[in-house]
Structure formats: C-alpha cells, structure tokens
C-alpha cells in the first residue's frame, strides 16, 4: 500500500486530510525578509518553533534572482515546504545583490550562527542540517530536510 500526496493547489488536498485540517489552511507560516537584522528579528519572533530558512540572492523587479542556483532552487523549495511540520516557520531571506554577497566581510558570512559560504543555502535553524547550491534544487534532498525529524 503506498500513500500519495498529490500535487495540486494548496486549498485542495485529495487524501490524508486530518480531521483538524480544514481545506484552505496553509500548513507553514511563510515570512520574507531582507538583511541579517531582519532575519534575526524574525527568528526571535518565532522562538520555540521549528524554523526553516532559505538564504537567496536578491530578486530584480521581474522577481528573478541574480543567482542562477537560487533560480533553480526556488520552485523546488516552494513545493517541498508543503511537507514541513504544520506549525513550522519558513523564512526566505535575501542576502542582497551580487556585490554585497561577494564581499567577504558580509554579515551572513561572518555571523556565528550562520557562517554562510554560498547561496542558496537552505537550513533547519539551530541544527547542522543544511543544503547548499545545487543541492537546493534536488527535491529528494529538500524534502528530507523539511520532513519531521
């Protein structure tokens, strides 16, 4: 017997709808921030919850990032986050434009709890679980990071 979770708009689940889940309820709280202080504020605000974070290059007016790996990762992450625990928080944080990111003194690179070395980086906050660069576009790996531990 194999269970399927079918791809469809978030407000319709065909199978395994739990009694406490009403159609239309999005499982994960999604937050978008820019810059390190905004990120840390968001983490503080949601303290105690399971927090996932995606660090990505900034997007232009058309919504496209300067970082090609981020562009590939975006749709995969968007899909797989639906498998995250129901009360999790998902923070998408822009690290800035290319020049800001390439600067080795960049906050995201030097901060004790982050020490980012590349974008995109997807992590489960407060654990060593992270995926980087092209791994963020692999749905099997991304799903594994989001699922209940």
């Amino acid at each position, binding site marked *: *017997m*194999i*269970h*399927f*979770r*079918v*791809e469809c708009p978030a407000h319709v689940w065909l199978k395994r709808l739990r009694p406490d889940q009403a159609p239309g309820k999005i499982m994960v709280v999604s937050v978008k921030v820019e810059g390190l202080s905004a990120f840390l504020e968001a983490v503080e605000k949601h303290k105690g919850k399971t927090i996932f974070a995606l660090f990505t290059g900034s997007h232009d007016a058309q919504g496209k990032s300067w970082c090609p790996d981020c562009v590939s990762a975006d749709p995969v992450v968007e*899909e797989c986050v639906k*498998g995250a625990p129901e009360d999790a928080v998902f923070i998408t944080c822009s690290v800035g434009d290319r020049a800001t990111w390439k600067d080795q003194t960049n906050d995201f690179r030097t901060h004790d709890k982050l020490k980012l070395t590349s974008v995109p980086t997807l992590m489960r906050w407060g*654990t*060593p*679980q*992270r*995926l980087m660069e092209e*791994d963020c576009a*692999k*749905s*099997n*790996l991304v*799903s*594994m990071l989001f*699922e209940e531990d």
Partner: protein
Amino acid sequence: MVSRADICFEIDMGTTQQCSLAISSQSAGLSYRKIKMAAPIVGFPRAAFIRGCLQLRWGTTRLSPNTVGFSTFSRRKYGWNAHVEPTIDWTTLTTVVQQHVKSLNWGHRVQLKDKNVDYLNAKGSLLDAHTVRMLSANGKEKTVTASNIVLAVGGRPKYPDIPGAMEYAITSDDLFMLEKPPGKTLVIGASYVSLECAGFLTGLGFDTTVMIRSIPLRGFDRQMADLVTDHMEGSGTRFLRQHVPVAIDKTDSGQLQVTWRDGNGQEGGSMFDTVMMAVGRFANTGTLGLDTVGVEWYSESGKVIGRDENPEQSSVPHIFAIGDILHGRPELTPVAIKAGRLLAHRLFANTHEHMDYDKVPTTVFIPLEYGSVGLSEEAALERFGSDDVEVYHAFYKPLEYYIPERDASQCYIKAVCKRDGDQEMVGLHFLGPNAGEVTQGFAVALRSGLTYQEMVSSVGIHPTCAEEVVKMGITKRSGLDPTVTGC
C-alpha cells in the same frame, strides 16, 4: 509527488528483486551503499547513526592538549606571557562535539539520498537467505527481499558482570553526552579506548585513574604498550594494575563507590564521580537471526566467520559481513570502509580486487601518540626466529622539547626487519608527537616492500621527528645505547 517517508515504510516486494540490502548504521555499511551502483539499495540503520566511534575519535584526536598546541608551561619557556592555565568549559565542549557528530550524520543522510539509497529506520533480522524482517519503532513489521545482504552492525561496549555496572557506569559512547563534567573518573579497561579516554581526560584536568586486569593494549607490541603507560603515568594518569572491579554502588552524595580486588586478592575501594567501562566490545549480531539462516559465527565474540579466500563472504551465499563484526580482521574504521567499497565493486562493477587486511597501519591517540604498522617485535620473533630478525631502534627528543625541557623518555622508534639481504621491514613502531601523521607515509612504503637499506638511504626532513626513522642505525642485538644525541 510521492512522499519519501510513505514509500519507505510501505515496501512489500512480493518477489526477489535485483537489489541489495545493507543492515547497518556503521561506517562500513555506509561506504558500501554510497557507491553509485545500478542496483537499488536499501538500508536499515539502527537508531544511533554512527555515534560512538566518531565521538570518541574526534574527542581524542582533536581535543588533547597536545594537538591544540603547547601547554601554557611550554609557551612561557619560549617567552609568551601566559600566566593563567586555561580551563575547560564542559558545556561548550560537549555541545560542539555533539553538533559536529550531528552534522556528519546529516552529511551521510544527504549523500545516501543523493544516490537514491533508501534509508529505513527499522531493526532488521534475517528470515532466510534473501529475506529480511523490518521492525520499526512503532511496532510495525514488514518484510523485504534482496539478492544480496550485507551485515555491518558493528560492536557494542561490553559490561563486566558485576553489581552496579549497567546501572552506574558509562561507556565511551556516553562521554560527550554527559551534562556535567566527569570529575574524578575511573576508566576500567586496558584497551586503546580506555587509554585514549583516560589520556584526554587527564589532559583536560580531570583526576583520572585506569584499572587494568593484566596487560595494557593486548595485541599490540609489548614494549611499546609499556612505554605508552609509562608516559601516561608520568603525565598524571593513575594506574591500578592487576585489579578487577567487584562492585559499583551509588552513595547518597551521588558519587560512585567502586570496590575492587587486587593481584594479591586484597579488596579495596575508592569514590569516583564517573566510572567508564572500556573492557572490550562484542559484535552486535545477537538479534540478526544468524542461526535462523545458517550464517556461521564465533560464539565467544558474536562475530561472523568469513571465508579465507573471500573474507567478507559468510557461510551463506549472498550474505556478507564487513567491519567490526567480521571475525579475525582488524576493528578499524578505514578497514571497514575500504572492505565495503571493494565488496560493492566486486558485486556490481565486475572487479576482482579483494581487501588486503595485511600491514594495516593504526595509531593509538594518547597524548603521546603511538603509531604502528606490520608485526610487533614478538610476533616477528615467533614467525621468523630471533636469528632471522634484526630490530633497529632509537630514543629521540623532539626539537620542540628542548627549550621547555620536556621529558622525552618515551619518544621511541623501533623497526622490525628481516636479517638477511636488504633487510625487509616487517614492522614499524613510532611513539611520539603526531605519530599518526608519521606512520601513514611509512605504512605505504612498508606495503610496497620497504627494506632497511632503502630506508636509511633516504634523506630525512629536518627538523622533524619522522627523520629519526630514516636515521636509525643501532640494533638491539648490538646492545649499544640507542639514544640519539645532537640536534
């Protein structure tokens, strides 16, 4: 999108599939499964994913005061203004070690996933030569079939059969999980695990005692083993030799009262904050169902018996064993990893290379490291006879010991060679700083047939400790003083 979790728990393959099953959580099994092979591979890790070995190894190799540089005393001798002896913050230490182990475990999961290896968190046991029963944590049972099955479940620490051992003693697996510093510690055992733990606990400033029933480091070169314990004693580790533990009791204060019996039959005892067992390991094969399918195993150790010509092959075709559960082979991580790789290549890439278990180098990571490759002196004498063995040796002093006037009494090298011709080297033993680094290169040479003549015709790198290996000229037979003089 099919959820990975759902698929993994609901496998029910009716027919034997062309796939491989690895029942393990240890390094050996992981290496086997990471090789990208055509056949799908399924794995059943036990709950704690590679915990013990990594934690211990990381602790000993990267934490001992030796590897993080000179002690404050030595620094002062060179002119550094260091007036305060550093102390260890136990919470920081255990946190970073645990985080590191978790990151390694995560890395393994990512690699397995990336190669489409299914990771099934369930206990596996054999039902027949091609069928495995999976028991998951919630009690659900399933079966899965495979054309090949690899067992790599590793070993677990033994506990002596004395009152209080199971209830109050910890093992090396638990050391970096302790919430409070271990304090005054008794380590029971004469294994390298015991000595390595005692070594770094002493280095971290804890009052540490080692209890040994008979000889230290059984299986290693006797002379080297004694030099090792001499050094540890000189560095402040206490030894209770020819002692056996009788009982462990917890007192009202929370401390542990250990009672023992010494070599003369006298009973004694003392109080400790922590008691750690390191008296050996047994193969964790008890629940695998080996008897059910006819896999031969050695009753004393629980280890699987391999074939001479095909060491990882068990008595049942298509069932293999690698790593610490394989009888008669070195219990070392790199050995297990390599054996796993070669097995996978033989099964799926049509190669014929077998694991060579001979001349495997190893190092005991006590504060003064001991690296060795090949035969011990006594093994060589037994095999070839004293007339046909020549032993070269030297006591040397690392350059960095001169100014701080550190004691180098146990810095010693021994090359065990055949006596005839160019004197083939059959064993090399090095006791000194960074022995692991020194031994690695020489081990490669030894495996290629290094002779004493070839070695001494090599030029040393100055100033290093390793150069003393290629400069050895005094034999034991000559009776001359083997102490190196000069710079």
